[in-house]
């Protein structure tokens, strides 16, 4: 028989390492008492190793084109695996204090990261679906991880039911696309779809509905605030970081590599979704009292900004998406490092009013959070400004002036609620102080803050890497 040589699987090495490592750690966890610490440590090391492996692998395809490694995949995988590792580091203290320490948490994060890698590298619709399900199924479980809390189980169930619905729509779209083109591989679809056709567009719409759900873009964003609020805080931090990156990666890859023949059709959908997300993210966040809900709306808005880059459909636009996602990752994990340290002796707090007067009770934390909030608002010279600059630049070069103008206006509205938090921290009467921040959260916050502050000094490496990665898609 035509057996596959083992060496032909090398492009999938990071995912194989992650999956095999997860199974080995599962055995460790199952057969050793109280091994959660050990498993967590092993999982973090595996994720870091996978990130390095992913960065080092040369271009190539495996499994008959179902699995692609190119510059784009390398870039996104480093972000996704790195984001997962940081989220896991940030969860250590929380899980220990809240007595939620179970070794399965790290295993599920590892398997979810495996799914992200498969998703980012997917070269056809079946690989896409399997990667997406592997990623999401683990996410549903970790959302409900605090199973004795009603809100956490509600978050998990809500996410699961809506996620299943979106998977159904995605599959319906896939089957329509397969029906109208006769193939599942992206390259084949691109060849067969050169002339378009209403049936193909119909399938595309359903496919996009599934993607929009995963990146939490309007009109498929409804789950985001409830899930972020209900899930344990480190889980929300993880949700905001890594899965968004993987989902955005497959959104870009599928659109650019499978549907280059029908750009006007998908462009108008992406433009609509981007505008709706930016506007809703900006306006709905204003009334929020809970900081986790606020971060949820903020992430909806940011996905809208990232989609502005995709809407242009050019290499510059995709470069903008890549830059945006990297900077978004740094801003979000930093902000969640602060949210995870909002702990008083009586327990975690998550109201925005609890941050009042933080500049006097904990000046360093207040300074870094203010820095990140300015960056999230997109105020120069912080990194968030450059993120927005590159996506808008891509949109303007593609002639989408209206989109860029609406985006800038939405970011002005969005700046209001970010700056409101800064005002509460610096000018309101101090509330009771928080307990001291654990060391690893300090480190994450410090690195994220300094990255945002000093990005403008030497932005070239990231911009160049993103540019090269974006070119590999075209």
């Amino acid at each position, binding site marked *: 028989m035509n057996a596959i040589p083992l060496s032909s699987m090398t492009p999938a090495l990071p995912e194989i390492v992650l999956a095999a490592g997860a199974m080995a750690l599962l055995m460790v966890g199952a057969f050793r008492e109280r091994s959660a610490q050990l498993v967590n440590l092993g999982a973090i090391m595996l994720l870091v190793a996978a990130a390095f492996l992913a960065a080092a692998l040369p271009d190539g395809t495996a499994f008959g084109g179902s699995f692609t490694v190119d510059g784009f995949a390398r870039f996104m995988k480093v972000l996704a695996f790195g984001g997962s590792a940081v989220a896991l580091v940030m969860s250590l203290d929380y899980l220990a204090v809240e007595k939620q320490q179970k070794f399965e948490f790290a295993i599920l994060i590892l398997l979810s990261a495996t799914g992200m890698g498969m998703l980012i590298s997917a070269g056809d619709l079946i690989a896409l679906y399997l990667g997406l399900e592997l990623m999401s199924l683990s996410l549903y479980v970790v959302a409900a991880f605090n*199973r004795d809390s009603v809100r956490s189980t509600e978050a998990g169930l809500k996410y699961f039911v809506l996620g299943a619905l979106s998977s159904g729509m995605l599959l319906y779209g896939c089957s329509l696309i397969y029906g109208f083109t006769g193939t599942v591989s992206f390259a084949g679809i691109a060849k067969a779809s050169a002339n378009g056709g209403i049936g193909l567009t119909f399938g595309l719409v359903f496919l996009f509905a599934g993607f929009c759900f995963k990146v939490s873009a309007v009109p498929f964003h409804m789950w985001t605030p409830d899930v972020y609020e209900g899930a344990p805080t480190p889980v929300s931090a993880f949700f905001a970081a890594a899965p968004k990156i993987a989902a955005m990666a497959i959104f870009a890859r599928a659109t650019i590599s499978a549907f280059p023949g029908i750009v006007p059709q998908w462009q108008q959908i992406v433009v609509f979704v981007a505008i709706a997300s930016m506007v809703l993210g900006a306006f709905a966040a204003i009334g929020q009292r809970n900081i986790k809900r606020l971060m949820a709306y903020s992430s909806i808005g940011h996905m809208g900004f990232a989609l502005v880059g995709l809407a242009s459909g050019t290499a510059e636009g995709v470069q903008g998406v890549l830059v945006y996602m990297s900077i978004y990752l740094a801003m979000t994990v930093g902000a969640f490092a602060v949210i995870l340290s909002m702990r008083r002796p009586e327990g975690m707090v998550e109201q925005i009013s609890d941050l009042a007067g933080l500049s006097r009770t904990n000046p360093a934390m207040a300074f870094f959070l203010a820095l990140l909030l300015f960056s999230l608002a997109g105020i120069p010279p912080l990194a968030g400004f450059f993120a927005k600059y590159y996506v808008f630049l891509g949109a303007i070069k593609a002639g989408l002036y209206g989109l860029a103008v609406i985006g800038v206006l939405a970011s002005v509205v969005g700046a209001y609620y970010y700056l409101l938090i800064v005002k509460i921290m610096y000018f309101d009467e101090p509330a009771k102080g928080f307990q001291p921040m654990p060391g690893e959260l300090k480190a994450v916050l410090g690195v994220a803050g300094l990255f945002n502050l000093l990005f403008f000094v030497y932005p070239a490496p990231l911009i160049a890497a993103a540019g090269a990665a974006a070119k590999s898609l075209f």
Partner: protein
Amino acid sequence: MIIPALFFYLFAGVCIAAAFMVIAAKNPVHSVLYLILAFVNAAGLFVMMGAEFLAMILIVVYVGAVAVLFLFVVMMLDVDFAELRQGFLQYLPVGALVGAIFLAELLLVVGAWVIGPGVPQTIAAPIPTGVNNTEAIGRVLYTQYVYYFQAAAVVLLVAMIGAIVLTLRHKTGVKRQDIGEQVARTKATAIEIVNVKPGQGLGA
């Protein structure tokens, strides 16, 4: 030619009718039974297409295992369907509107049905000749499709871990038989010698 067509319409018709009854039946147990009928008819359709292996797997796995499991769950859960249906009429207008729009869109799609010019070149796998179903599937499952196969296996592993994480509780204070402990008992731990003085009993 007429007999295959006749059987096709028989299987397809019963399958759709049974599928409709799954959602229309008042009693959930009846729903599951209709579901089994739908599966059996779908298996019949597979046989007519020459996919005997899939047909048998459908019967063995779906009817034999999944549907029976469903039946157990439905019988064990005490679901009050009358209560669930209460909101039905309230949402009917909105639902009907969405359904109508959806139907119109579907008609548009079906109306525009043309097979793309690129399609004949992209069709993936020709039907192999000279081998039976099982062999044909076996030849590609671990070679051409090994990636999908393994990925699906990992998805199932996650489902298993998830189910255990969310439901398994180690109760404390439950008395269980521990054979190792029973065997390891020694004379010192098992019996106590009490020196009872005559005429006094064990006392209180």
